[in-house]
């Protein structure tokens, strides 16, 4: 393939411009637009919930939120009310970010930017979850909060006893392993989301560069599905980790349902 036709693939988000020394990347740009839409939708929903005559938009959002609530209720039971805002935000935010990467123009609108003194062309928009910084941030929030809720629900003493118990010397070895596994959760969360979305982006780019017309349509539908599944998996895993970390029966040394 000649240099001119080579599809443009970059593993990191490109810098578009700077504001006061703060570099604005293309993924941040699209993320900000999606964030504005997300906030706007939430505000409209909030004001509609107070007014008398509600639009069909309200009922549509209500339907989605209700199905999400039922989904999380199957894991968290009566504690769902407390955790629902966090988990539903995770789901809807990631879903919108994943799907925004499939919009026409994202990744195909190119602009010229300066990098290391030379002019290169970079896409103006990039799906936010195809940027490792975002997924890492989401993963750190998710894992940190599951530890935070564990301390909040169990108390600090019981939280430490989850890892180290004086009565069982072997727990000093296993507890260290479990602490490492908490850190590896961050990496696995981040890479799972990033890998899926970025791989989808690469797949679509390469298919479109091989066969320009119609061939990428089935892959587009596949990516819609993958984006949904990854949002679901991220929020479901967060739910499961939170429900495991706040569970009390875990302390009694009964680790047989631990996976």
């Amino acid at each position, binding site marked *: 393939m000649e240099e001119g036709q080579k599809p443009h*693939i970059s593993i990191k988000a490109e810098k578009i411009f700077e504001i006061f020394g703060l570099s604005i990347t293309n993924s941040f740009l699209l993320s900000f637009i999606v964030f504005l839409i997300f906030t706007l939708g939430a505000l409209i929903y909030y004001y509609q919930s107070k007014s008398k005559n509600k639009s069909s938009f309200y009922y549509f959002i209500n339907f989605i939120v209700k199905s999400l609530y039922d*989904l999380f209720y*199957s894991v968290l039971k009566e504690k769902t009310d407390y955790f629902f805002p966090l988990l539903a935000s995770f789901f809807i935010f990631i879903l919108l970010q994943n799907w925004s990467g499939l919009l026409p123009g994202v990744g195909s609108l190119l602009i010229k930017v300066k990098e290391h003194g030379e002019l290169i062309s970079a896409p103006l928009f990039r799906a936010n979850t195809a940027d490792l910084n975002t997924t890492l941030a989401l993963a750190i929030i998710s894992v940190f909060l599951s530890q935070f809720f564990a301390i909040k629900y169990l108390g600090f003493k019981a939280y430490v006893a989850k890892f180290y118990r004086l009565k069982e010397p072997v727990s000093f070895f296993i507890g260290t392993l479990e602490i490492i596994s908490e850190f590896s959760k961050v990496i696995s969360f981040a*890479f*799972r989301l*990033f*890998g899926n979305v970025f791989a989808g982006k690469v797949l679509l780019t390469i298919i479109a560069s091989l066969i320009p017309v119609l061939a990428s349509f089935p892959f587009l539908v596949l990516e819609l599905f993958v984006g949904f599944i990854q949002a679901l998996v991220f929020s479901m895993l967060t739910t499961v980790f939170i429900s495991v970390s706040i569970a009390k029966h875990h302390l009694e040394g009964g680790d047989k349902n631990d996976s």
Partner: protein
Amino acid sequence: MTAEVAKFFATALTMAVGAIAPAISIGIIGSKAVEALGRNPEAESAIRTTMILAIAFAEAVAIYALVVALIIKFV
């Protein structure tokens, strides 16, 4: 073998070897889910959710291999 050829081989082998175990495990998960569905069809939604979660776990390994392959190829 030049460095460029080694890079191509590394990319292809990362993906090829890395996809073996996830492929087998997704097959096992799917077959077990169908078995469970055959035994009690009324638990369909619970089985489906658990199956998708388990598949996502297994698939993540393949995705790691894919990310590494992409890094080798493009960085």
